[in-house]
């Protein structure tokens, strides 16, 4: 069952069209990564999903409730942190959570549970203004998780978290997805984050979704690799490359060559080069799977 369905959504802010027709869906228990550079339209999309702004065209449906028509019902299925988690700095962490708990009719025991889950027990009765950025992030996550939502929406969630915090965060999200069957929507511009956490990744740039791919074994399926070849016989090497069928193209980058070739054909490349008596100093992969795809889709191909 689809927890979230976004269908043909457009959004214009002032004169600029920010979102130019996007469609995707997220299933129960799925961790969905929303990957794109700054200004791609990630936060705008999230704002529409949580009803902070209205789409100009298209529909957003959460658990069968369309956000523009059934706003309250749709929101009751969502827990969200939009951009930085801004909680009331003059209240304590617990008072902040109790504000939400009162609205959502959540018991004290559940509030305690979520405080434990995000590891804030020691500092929960301090004023939020005394919190570090990482603690604010965890409190924001607690505020989003408090209602055990069907859909958890997180916008750049690991900003300001230290390495331990990031690992804890990953565990919390993975657990929620597995045990509560929560669908998780994570927007990010950090490749590693998406790679390690998500089942599916959508690439967004310029208000358009460029591709949606599934991640298995920590990486997406690829049909192309990019390697860098450092050699003393650069001209001879270039000629040889042209004769190889599995090489899509190459260009010079200073003293080295950047080569695009079919996936998993690097061993053949090295073999062919040495067969042609080309003296290779070094061969290394320039981009790995997800990074490669990101560059193609978002940055418009190879980078020098």
């Amino acid at each position, binding site marked *: 069952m689809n927890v979230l369905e976004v269908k043909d959504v457009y959004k214009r*802010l002032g004169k600029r069209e920010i979102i130019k027709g996007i469609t995707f869906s997220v299933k129960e228990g799925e961790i969905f990564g929303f990957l794109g550079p700054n200004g791609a339209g990630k936060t705008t999309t999230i*704002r529409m999903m*949580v*009803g*902070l*702004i*209205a789409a100009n065209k298209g529909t957003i449906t959460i658990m069968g409730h369309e956000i523009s028509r059934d*706003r*309250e*019902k749709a*929101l*009751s299925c*969502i827990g*969200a942190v*939009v*951009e930085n*988690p*801004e*909680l*009331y*700095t*003059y*209240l304590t962490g617990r*008072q902040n959570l109790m*504000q*939400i708990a*009162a*609205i*959502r009719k959540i018991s004290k025991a559940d509030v305690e549970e979520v405080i434990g889950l995000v590891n804030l027990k020691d500092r929960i009765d301090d004023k939020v203004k005394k919190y570090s950025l990482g603690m604010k992030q965890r409190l924001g996550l607690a*505020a989003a998780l408090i209602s055990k939502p069907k859909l958890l929406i997180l916008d750049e969630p690991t900003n300001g978290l230290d390495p331990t915090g990031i690992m804890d965060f990953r565990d919390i999200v993975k657990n929620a997805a597995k045990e509560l069957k929560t669908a998780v929507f994570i927007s990010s511009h950090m490749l590693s984050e998406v790679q390690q956490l998500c089942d599916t990744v959508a690439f967004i740039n310029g208000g358009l979704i460029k591709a949606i791919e599934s991640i298995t074994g920590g990486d997406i399926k690829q049909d192309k690799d990019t390697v860098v070849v450092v050699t003393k016989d650069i001209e001879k090497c270039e000629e040889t490359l042209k004769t190889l069928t599995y090489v899509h193209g190459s260009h010079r980058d200073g003293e080295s060559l950047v080569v695009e070739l079919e996936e998993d054909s690097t061993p053949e490349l090295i073999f062919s080069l040495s067969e042609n008596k080309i003296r290779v100093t070094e061969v290394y992969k320039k981009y790995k799977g997800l990074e490669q795809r990101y560059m193609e889709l978002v940055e418009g191909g190879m980078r020098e």
Partner: protein
Amino acid sequence: MMIFTLISNEIKKLMMRKKTIIVFAAFVLLTAAIGYGTYRDEVNRKQWSSPEFRQTNLQESIKQRKQDLEDPNMTAENKKYSKEEIVSMEQELANIKLETSGKTVDWKTQLKVKMDESQKTIDDTSLELPTDQKDRMKLELQKDKYLYDNNIKPEDGGVLSAFSFIQTLFLVLGTIFIAVGVMVFTGDMVSGEFTPPTMKILLTQPVSRAKVLASKFIAVAGVSTILILVVEILSFVIMGLIFGFGNANYPVITGTIYKWDLTQSIYGGHPLIAVAGSSYIMTTGNFVIRMFLMQTLFIITCVSVGFMLSSIVKSSMVSVSLSIVIVVALTILVEMPALKKVAQYMFTTYGSVGPVLMGEVAMRYNNPNATTTFGIGTLIVTSIVCYVIAHVVFTKKDILI
């Protein structure tokens, strides 16, 4: 009910804000200062009205008049007038002497004499008094009769009591302090949640925006009204315990409606005259209760105006300063002759609730339309219009924070 949960959330937030404590403390200090000022005035007044002081004063005046009479250039008419004055002053002097000699003058006898004199003046058709003046005299006479019948000693010049203090307090607070204080308190009720953008979390909860806005309005209107009333009532009780509460049955002339009379202004008089029969007498207790109600309405109107600005403007700095500027500008600008004509439409005109209820606002702004009823209407309409604007803007707009 969800709305009660939201209101309770909002009240909790309000009470935890530092600003609430600061504004409240400022208000307490202001009230205390007004209390002290009233007390100093009373001390001065007592000194000036002491029998000894009045006696020497009168003696001086009589001596002066007598000297004037010796002046050969004085017209016959002026001489006659001066002589009359001397007679009345000597009579008063005799009264004071009687007072100081320990034999108290019966105020009731005095009052009776005054009443008879007034009655005589009113009945004297040869004087050709203007109708509004006659009306005023009749009313004063009615007030005296009330005092006489109810056995209440007249308090000419006012005696410091909780009742007289609360009226002064309302007068001073109403000039501008309540409006500005409420604006400071309310001006960031909505915009304050945009910087920093805490509104995001509130608006992603499963409640309608209309309810979020309504709960904020009810919370801030309720808290500001209660905080102001509590301080006022406390100061009333404290002043009462120190200086006495005064008589709740003391009569007040109120409800006067005015109309244009340009014939008066030719002679330099005020162009407004009271409409005959519009004024009536009310007990002080009743009047003070009405002042509290009127002030509550005024506070709610101020809250609505500040609340609207805070819903329209995104920055709390801008919305708070803008609302203060508006209050100050409206208060000052309507004093200009050209703008007095529209004073009745400004909510700030009705801040001093005492004059509003008495009808004196019309006199102040030279504007007979600024009546008590019109004032109540203006305040209610302003509140509703402001809230509707806030509601429409807030429920429709994209929250880009």
